[in-house]
């Protein structure tokens, strides 16, 4: 046998899809280069065989040129022993000199539950600090606090099936079409089957998700809570309250209703506050009133807000008031963005949690956990949440930070502050599988970590489903599992017995043991069934939804079916809400409101998706979406370079003129880092404003100004080698199959000689030049050939234009000598008589705009017909919304 199929879980979003990977038997001589594309696991209840483009491209990300392979201290490669000694000595010293709170972990929703568990245990039980926070703070901390305020526990009531069973789906602050494509596809399929199912999207932007919306409320940014305050009142007005549920299972209804009535007294006041029409609001209210099976589906648009928790509770209030919770097709459903944000919550891997869904404030919890862990140095109060943590670092209070599997130099708001904080910190330890990230650049000690496909453990998805991520490939170089490194440091600090796990399943079993320890139904999180799990059972674990208490191995599909909540009196709580807008509003100096989010085919800071060339085809560069009115006024043309400035920093992005944003609003994606572009880190612009309860930063809101960058020329540089110097006004490296592809902006005064000089200084090899100059079109194009091999191509144009570079990239370091015509074609960008596909729309089948337009011109008039003709949209389906847009536009034109 030369290959085995292994089931594992996707490392990207919170949907947690099952993935089948065919792993070649390395002993049989098969190279890792030849790993076939992964496929969706037909048996996994999250995706039933489907995968999105990102998931489908996982095989392309298994090998990276940029893996961190050995431990380093101050840039010098060292042994694991030496690196661990360095770290342990420093931790011991600062704890001794300054107390345990001088140390902090900053973890990630990408590490596995077992990694999380030992980190949390080490910090909170052994070092004695609750300074354990995580990038999940940036993602769903508000949702956690919202649930806890309402239910007394961080319990997601719903499951994915509810999305298919509901009759009304209200999607708030979620562009699921791009961020959770497989859930979105399930919703699309359900709506197709039951056209009466209504979908409402509440989002300031018109996103791809609006494609299936029966109603889109393009609300004023941050005004979400008012919509739900109105629905609460409306439920009273039209008499759809579940009075029995309210009286038997809840507290605080009257106060919540009063506050809603006070803060948003009338239809018109809400419509004004939200900047939407009264008719639209009433339409939503009428559907809400008559639809028992309603799911409110919310994500970062709700959570990333200074009033994120209140927004969550405004939503939950409505569900409690109508008893639409704990029932099939009904409930307030927070969807997480990361593969294991939920796992982190379960172990308590956040600064305001203790462990296993217990808080420091939970009566008896500290003592219970201390006994279970046999912990010598229990932390006794909440630690610092992300923003406070980095501020304490800058203030010199935190002296050692251990950052694991995350990139705060890109994801935390106000990057300049994060830089100051890390510079101030005496020891910055970074565990990562990548050698070069914006954060590894700040590290004193680098620990090479195993990555997805090497790690072994569990993750929990947005519907509480625990799935295995399985180790498929050997660890490269000296990379180690995060849990192994944490335990190694713990033992070095003197905690031998508490961290002497031989295998990862022992950690999982202990985690399960803590979850059931003196629980007896008091705490929602109980996976006691697994407390004695064997390695074999662990390896064979099938995806299951917690709680999985002893005696209920099948897990729990839906929570609160018994309407018993985890508050002391088992009643859910209404929370009085006053909708508030973001503190920072437009001023003459900062007139634009910036919103941020994801693009379809990238994930987080591109440390993995950036390895797959295919995933750049949909969106190759960062951009700022600007309304045509604003663009016209500011003389910004499509794809031209724009400078965004806020009081905190600046960014240079290409404009995308679009009516998807309202005038006065702009949108930019979050993914691009200094590894990929010179000035596209959007967090630069964002203030460190956070929700006072959840500590979640308002990363989707900043006030900025825009200006067109003048006196520039646009172009592209494609090179066989990475450029040593990137002396451009703007550059963005677009991951490519072959060589290095940079989209660039030059100063307009560049000429052939200056470009040649720059490239000659930037590329090792020197050779002959091909040159195209056209003063009529102000174009300069150069190519460099060394020993018959193409090593670089540079184009300079006066205006931004899209150049398809696939063919050029395929010619880099060509094996066969180039014909004269090929050499000329290099300065054209494509060989003569070759079809120009245009910008790629369908990444799966590489179908581009020009092919689609051609098919439509030739009479194709539906998305289905496009699919049967070109195959586009027939695999992952994530391009279907865009495909749809081709059809009406064309119909209008031909009409």
């Amino acid at each position: 046998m030369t290959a085995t199929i292994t089931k594992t879980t996707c490392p990207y979003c919170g949907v947690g899809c099952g993935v089948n990977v065919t792993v070649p038997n390395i002993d049989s001589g098969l190279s890792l280069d030849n790993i076939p594309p992964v496929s969706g696991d037909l048996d996994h209840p999250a995706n039933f065989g489907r995968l999105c483009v990102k998931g489908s491209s996982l095989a392309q990300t298994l090998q990276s040129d940029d893996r961190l392979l050995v431990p380093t201290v101050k840039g010098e490669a060292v042994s694991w022993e030496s690196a661990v000694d360095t770290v342990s000595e420093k931790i011991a010293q600062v704890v001794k000199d300054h107390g345990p709170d001088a140390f902090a972990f900053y973890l990630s929703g990408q590490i596995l539950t077992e990694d999380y568990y030992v980190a949390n245990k080490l910090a909170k039980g052994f070092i004695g600090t609750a300074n354990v926070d995580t990038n999940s703070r940036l993602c769903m901390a508000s949702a956690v606090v919202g649930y806890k305020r309402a239910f007394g526990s961080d319990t997601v009531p719903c499951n994915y099936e509810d999305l298919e069973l509901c009759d009304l789906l209200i999607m708030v602050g979620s562009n699921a079409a791009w961020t959770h494509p497989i859930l979105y596809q399930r919703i699309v399929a359900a709506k197709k089957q039951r056209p009466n199912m209504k979908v409402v999207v509440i989002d300031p932007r018109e996103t791809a998700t609006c494609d299936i919306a029966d109603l889109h409320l393009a609300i004023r940014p941050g005004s979400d809570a008012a919509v739900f305050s109105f629905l609460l009142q409306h439920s009273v007005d039209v008499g759809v309250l579940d009075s029995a549920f309210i009286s038997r299972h809840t507290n605080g209804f009257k106060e919540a209703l009063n506050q809603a009535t006070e803060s948003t007294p009338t239809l018109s006041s809400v419509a004004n506050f939200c900047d939407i029409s009264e008719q639209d609001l009433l339409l939503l209210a009428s559907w809400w009133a008559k639809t028992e099976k309603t799911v409110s589906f919310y994500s970062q648009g709700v959570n990333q807000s200074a009033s994120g928790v209140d927004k969550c509770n405004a939503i939950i209030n409505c569900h409690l008031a109508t008893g639409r919770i704990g029932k099939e097709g009904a409930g307030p459903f927070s969807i997480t963005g990361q593969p294991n944000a939920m796992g982190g919550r379960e172990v308590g891997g956040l600064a305001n949690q203790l462990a296993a869904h217990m808080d420091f404030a939970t009566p008896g919890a500290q003592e219970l956990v201390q006994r279970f862990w046999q912990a010598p140095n229990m932390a006794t109060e909440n630690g610092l949440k992300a923003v406070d943590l980095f501020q304490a670092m800058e203030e010199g209070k935190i002296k050692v930070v251990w950052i694991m599997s995350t990139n705060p130099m890109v994801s935390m708001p106000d990057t300049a502050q994060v830089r100051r904080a890390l510079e101030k910190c005496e020891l910055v330890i970074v565990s990562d599988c990548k050698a070069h990230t914006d954060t590894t650049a700040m590290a004193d000690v680098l620990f090479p970590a195993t990555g997805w496909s090497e790690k072994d453990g569990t993750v929990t998805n947005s519907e509480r489903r625990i799935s295995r991520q399985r180790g498929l490939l050997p660890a490269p170089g000296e990379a180690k599992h995060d849990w192994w490194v944490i335990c190694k440091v713990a033992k070095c600090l003197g905690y031998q017995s508490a961290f002497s796990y031989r295998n990862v399943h022992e950690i999982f079993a202990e985690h399960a043991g803590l979850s059931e320890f003196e629980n007896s139904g008091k705490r929602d999180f109980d996976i006691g069934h697994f407390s004695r799990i064997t390695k074999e059972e662990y390896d064979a674990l099938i995806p299951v939804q917690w709680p999985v208490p002893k005696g209920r191995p099948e897990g729990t599909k839906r929570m609160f079916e018994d309407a018993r909540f985890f508050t002391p009196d088992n009643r859910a709580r209404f929370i009085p809400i006053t909708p508030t807008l973001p503190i920072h509003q437009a001023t003459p100096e900062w007139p634009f409101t910036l919103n941020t989010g994801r693009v379809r085919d990238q994930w987080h800071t591109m440390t993995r998706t950036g390895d797959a060339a295919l995933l750049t085809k949909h969106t190759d560069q960062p951009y700022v979406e600007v309304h045509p009115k604003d663009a016209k006024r500011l003389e910004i043309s499509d794809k031209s370079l724009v400078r965004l400035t806020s009081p905190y920093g600046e960014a240079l992005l290409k404009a995308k003129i679009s009516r998807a944003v309202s005038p006065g609003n702009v949108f930019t994606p979050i993914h691009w880092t200094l590894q990929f572009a010179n000035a596209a880190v959007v967090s630069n612009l964002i203030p460190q404003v956070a929700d006072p309860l959840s500590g979640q930063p308002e990363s989707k809101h900043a006030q900025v100004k825009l200006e067109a960058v003048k006196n520039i020329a646009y172009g592209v540089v494609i090179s066989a080698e990475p450029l040593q110097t990137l002396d451009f006004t703007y550059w963005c490296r677009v991951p490519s199959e072959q060589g290095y592809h940079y989209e660039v902006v030059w100063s307009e005064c560049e000429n052939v000689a200056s470009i040649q000089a720059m490239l000659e200084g930037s590329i090792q090899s020197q050779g002959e030049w091909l040159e195209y100059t056209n003063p009529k079109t102000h174009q300069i194009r150069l190519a460099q050939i060394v020993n018959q091999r193409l090593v670089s191509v540079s184009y300079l144009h006066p205006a931004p234009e899209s150049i398809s570079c696939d063919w050029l990239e395929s010619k880099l370091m060509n094996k066969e000598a180039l014909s004269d015509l090929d050499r000329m074609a290099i300065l054209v960008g494509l060989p003569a008589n070759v079809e120009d596909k245009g910008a790629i729309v369908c990444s799966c089948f590489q179908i581009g705009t020009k092919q689609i337009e051609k098919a439509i011109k030739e009479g194709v008039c539906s998305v289905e017909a496009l699919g049967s003709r070109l195959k586009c949209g027939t695999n992952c389906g994530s391009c279907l919304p865009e495909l749809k847009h081709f059809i009406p536009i064309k119909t209008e034109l031909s009409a």
Partner: protein
Amino acid sequence: MIDSSDSTRIVIVGAGMAGSKLAYDLLQENNANYLITLIGEETQVGYNRIMLSSLLANDISAVDMPLVNTNQMKEEGVNIISGDCVVITDPITKTLCLASGRTVKYDKLIIATGSRARMLPIEGAQASNVMGFRTWHDVNVMADLDAKQSVCVIGGGLLGLEAAVGLVKRGHLVTVFHRSNWLLNRQLDSESAELLLSRLQTMGINFRLGESPTSFVQSEGGLVTHAICSDGESMAVNLVVMAAGISPEIALAKAAGLKTNQAILVDEKMQTSHPDVFALGECCEFENQTFGLVAPIWAQIKVLINVLKGGEAYFAIEPVPTKLKVSGVNLFSVGRVEPIEGDSCIFFKDVGANHYRKLVVNDGLLVGAILYGNVADGSWYFQLMQNKTDVSDMLELLVFGEAYCSPQVA
């Protein structure tokens, strides 16, 4: 033999390309009643002069030389007189006297006497081993040279370079003197000429650019033995080939009292100052221009045939592309290759592949082009110029040729 009193006697003086082709084409005019006489001073008649370079270079052989089928012409009644030349023309009596003493009467006289190599007035150049490169005979002289002779070619224009290549291919040591600083300075710019120069240098030709010999040293027997260079260097030579331009052959016309300037003045009907006398080819001048390339001459023949029939036809000057007939060297040049005010130049340069393109555009029109290395698009560019096609929408890809631009045209 057709000899009818109502037929028109057409006499063509000069049996070079223009004269021979005219005679041949007139023969194809079915309805006309012509009695054609073709008189040539060379013994070979009706050959393709353009091919002399290839013949010299041994790229072709004598059988490839004919331009027209002279045997067929004779059979069909053309009176071909070769190796004889006209010495007196009398337009009053419409009679020609030949060197051999024969007289020939005509109704319509066509002068196609062509041109001679221009012999530069360099001291010592009057010698039997100083020759032009115009005729089959010249090729034969060069072909009969002893092996490894030192040849000095004066002139780095089309003809000079073709001669130089032919001679170097025959194993001779060739030095080209060229007054301008770059070769083919009327057809190329300095950059493309640089490519050509290095190509020709690799073929073994030596060049002295920006320079002419100051004098020639002759032996006692009156043969040139040395060329004296401007830096005083004395270079041994066995043969000098003058290829520094041509002089229209107009002695006969002048003697006949026809109006001449540089050449015989003709109007748009190819008519000279005498109504029954016409001129065409290299010996004629129209609108201050003389003609050295074949395309306008073919156009003149068409006009003249029509005019002789009494039809309406007018000659007009069109841009004409030039190509160098050296195997392995591809160049194409047409129109205005040095920009004047208001022109823009689009360049493609691939020195490594010896590929160079320069287009001169003005106000949406292509007005000049140089192609070196790959000339496949030459005819397309020429067409764009002839048709005065608006290329404004093609400017971005124009220099890359028809394959990239034609979809936009369609």
